[in-house]
């Protein structure tokens, strides 16, 4: 269960926090009545009996899903404009459309469980408890960023919440995730690691190497394929002989999940965690969609139609789905949801303003963290004669 919402976490670190608190109380956010909701799409299992379609939730959880996803959505939209204003450099991959995966997964697991992902990492970082200011500062390469401004968009990390970060090379994070899972098993932590990758990365060879190892040693690794149907600009069916990614583990069981439904994702992740702790790896295929292009340099409209994107927005949008559920169960009036969104917008703007105030990292940071501190290796300047700094 999501014990606290992202928004509240984010607020606690921001000066404008008093703005939202009374409102959160006004909403019935403490109502924990059990609601049973059926997922609209059934699960499909591969070598495994899928979990029930009836998901238990509560008004409190639905509201926190709504807030978290709205916050993620807003953050990504803001990152889009910051990138276009050249305040974010490097490459920037946005998560909007896929929020249900981050939020649903977070609701099913604890901070003892690890998450590792590729470069589309902003929202997972927020989900793990990262703050907006840290996120925006990192995006803009400022000192207060979660990687001290040295990583940028693709490299968010949060060690205390076991977020093993964003990785820039397609598919390279999955074997790492299996290594993390091995350590968890070895240390008898009773925790699992979710290794996320896209449908494009699903065709990388190292994925299968990692899968074999995990299955061989029954590691508590959960491979989550976030299938947004396009590996960069190539549609899944052009790149994959079998786009049924949940089946591609062959000897490893898999589950296909509606990745646009946070509740379905929650149920699946809970199920997968239990399975992984008892039996070893499992593949979850999250059927989802990204509204933006692959990265900011991809308009996202050359290989798919605008109608396709707007169709998904209308029919499957994860945020709208939760909004409808909230309204259908008469939890909160629509106007209050609008108010929440307005507050979020303001909150994001405040975080951006705060991040912009933040200084750049020191120049010397260029040379730090290349090796362990005090290792004594010299880094040379453009010419060996000119700078000779022992790495701090």
């Amino acid at each position, binding site marked *: 269960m999501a014990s606290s919402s992202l928004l509240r976490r984010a607020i606690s670190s921001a000066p404008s926090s008093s703005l939202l608190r009374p409102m959160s109380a006004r909403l019935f956010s403490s109502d924990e009545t059990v609601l049973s909701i059926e997922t609209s799409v059934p699960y499909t299992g591969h070598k495994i009996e899928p979990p029930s379609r009836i998901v238990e939730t509560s008004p409190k959880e639905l509201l926190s899903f709504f807030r978290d996803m709205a916050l993620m959505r807003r953050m990504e939209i803001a990152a889009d404009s910051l990138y276009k204003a*050249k305040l974010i*450099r*490097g*490459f920037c991959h946005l998560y909007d459309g896929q929020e249900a995966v981050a939020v649903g997964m977070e609701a099913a697991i604890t901070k003892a469980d690890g998450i590792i992902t590729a470069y589309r990492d902003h929202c997972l970082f927020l989900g793990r408890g990262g703050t907006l200011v840290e996120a925006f500062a990192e995006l803009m*390469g400022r000192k207060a960023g979660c990687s001290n*401004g*040295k*990583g*940028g*968009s*693709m*490299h968010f990390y949060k060690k205390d919440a076991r977020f093993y970060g964003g990785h*820039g*090379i*397609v*598919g390279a994070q999955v074997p790492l995730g299996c290594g993390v899972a091995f350590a968890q098993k070895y240390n008898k932590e009773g925790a699992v690691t979710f290794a996320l990758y896209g449908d*494009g*990365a699903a*065709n*990388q*060879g*190292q994925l299968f190497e990692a899968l074999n190892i995990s299955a061989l040693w029954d590691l508590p690794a959960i491979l989550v394929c976030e299938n947004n149907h396009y*590996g*960069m*600009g*190539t549609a899944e069916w*052009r*790149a*994959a002989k079998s786009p049924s990614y949940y089946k591609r583990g062959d000897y490893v069981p898999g589950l296909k999940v509606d990745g646009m439904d946070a509740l379905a994702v929650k149920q699946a992740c809970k199920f997968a965690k239990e399975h992984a702790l008892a039996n070893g790896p499992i593949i979850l295929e999250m059927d989802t969609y990204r509204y933006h292009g692959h990265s900011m*340099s*991809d308009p996202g409209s*050359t*290989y798919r139609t605008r109608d396709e994107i707007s169709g998904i927005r209308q029919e499957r949008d994860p945020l709208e789905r939760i909004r409808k559920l909230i309204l259908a169960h008469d939890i909160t009036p629509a106007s209050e949801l609008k108010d929440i969104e307005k507050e979020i917008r303001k909150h994001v703007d405040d975080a951006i303003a705060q991040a912009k105030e933040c200084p*750049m*990292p020191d*120049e010397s*940071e*260029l*040379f730090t963290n*290349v090796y362990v501190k005090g290792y004594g290796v010299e*880094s*040379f*300047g*453009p*010419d*060996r*004669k*000119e*700078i*000779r700094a022992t790495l701090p």
Partner: protein
Amino acid sequence: MAMALRKLGWGGVLIGRRGFSSTGELESSSSRDGKLVNLFTAVNQALHIALDTDPRSYVFGEDVSFGGVFRCTTGLAHRFGRQRVFNTPLCEQGIAGFAIGLAAMGNRAIAEIQFADYIFPAFDQLVNEAAKFRYRSGNEFNCGGLTIRSPYGAVGHGGHYHSQSPEAFFCHVPGLKVVVIPRSPRQAKGLLLASIRDPNPVVFFEPKASTLKFIFRQLCKIYQCWLYRLAVEEVPDADYMLPLSQAEVIREGKDITVVGWGAQLSILEQACEDAEKEGISCELIDLRTLIPWDKETVEASVSKTGRLLVSHEAPVTGGFGAEISASIIERCFLRLEAPVARICGLDTPFPLVYEPFYMPTKNKSCFRLCTCEREYTSMTKGQYKRTTFHLWILFRQPIRALTEAFVQILDAIKSTVNY
């Protein structure tokens, strides 16, 4: 098989290639009938010609069939069909291995790795399979028709994984003809066609584009289309090749030889111009091919000038500049009047912030050109005799003063870069 390949594809063009003893001739004679195009259009033209002239050539890679991220392959799939121009899954190792197999069957495989930073999963295939195929099979097999194209280098905001210059890794692999890095559209077309038709596996790196095409186009006019990675230039429509392993002196001078390749040449050209104002005459050489590289041209130039500066974006330690430096010292030891200087990237991962500090920028290059020229007047029996130039102070307090001088340069760079 190799013989069959030769008969099939190369015919006249190979003969044509032999004819180009100097590129200047070709360029001056054909520059009038070409269109003004940028580097990527030139690459696109070359690929059109390659596919057109050899029915056994193929172009593939990630997102290639809809034009590729740099639009280098626009229109190819439409014209030559999806059987010959196609997208691959995201699997660099697979792409490279697949290309090697295709080439080993007597075809010309032109594979694209989307960014040079992604070439490392393919490193094993290139180093262990492609490079040694001919050698270990006693010439029974080869993958000579293989060309791997990949955009490399900094773009100003690429961050860790879209900016690296991995050319030196491949220079350490006998069997790969490595790395032709064109500095301009016309060069790109001629060198790419030569690489594709070369009977050895070639890794071909291209300087990247940026979205600032139009702004740069204006700049390029100011620099008279000179050496900008985004420069537009008149490129002949015809099928032509430029010889591999032949460096080109693109600016004559008498005081110091400056060697570079690819996009770095635009930086060096500006540094040379600034040094000229200080009274230092620089001879600028575009190496064009790194393996096998044209030692003779560089040697001849260094014998004349007595000084050498090499510059590349990759980190200085173990970069290809080290190889050039060592070779020239072997060949020109007694004629050198100063130690060989290198202006390269720093020995750090490619940074997201402070990219200009990492880069071998114009100011750094110019500063080094000046110090290199003025440090020493003569070198006798291993002892350096310094000139009376004001820089002598730098040598009395070498580290502190030089660091200060460097910091000033950094400040200057910083003030011109708007974060």
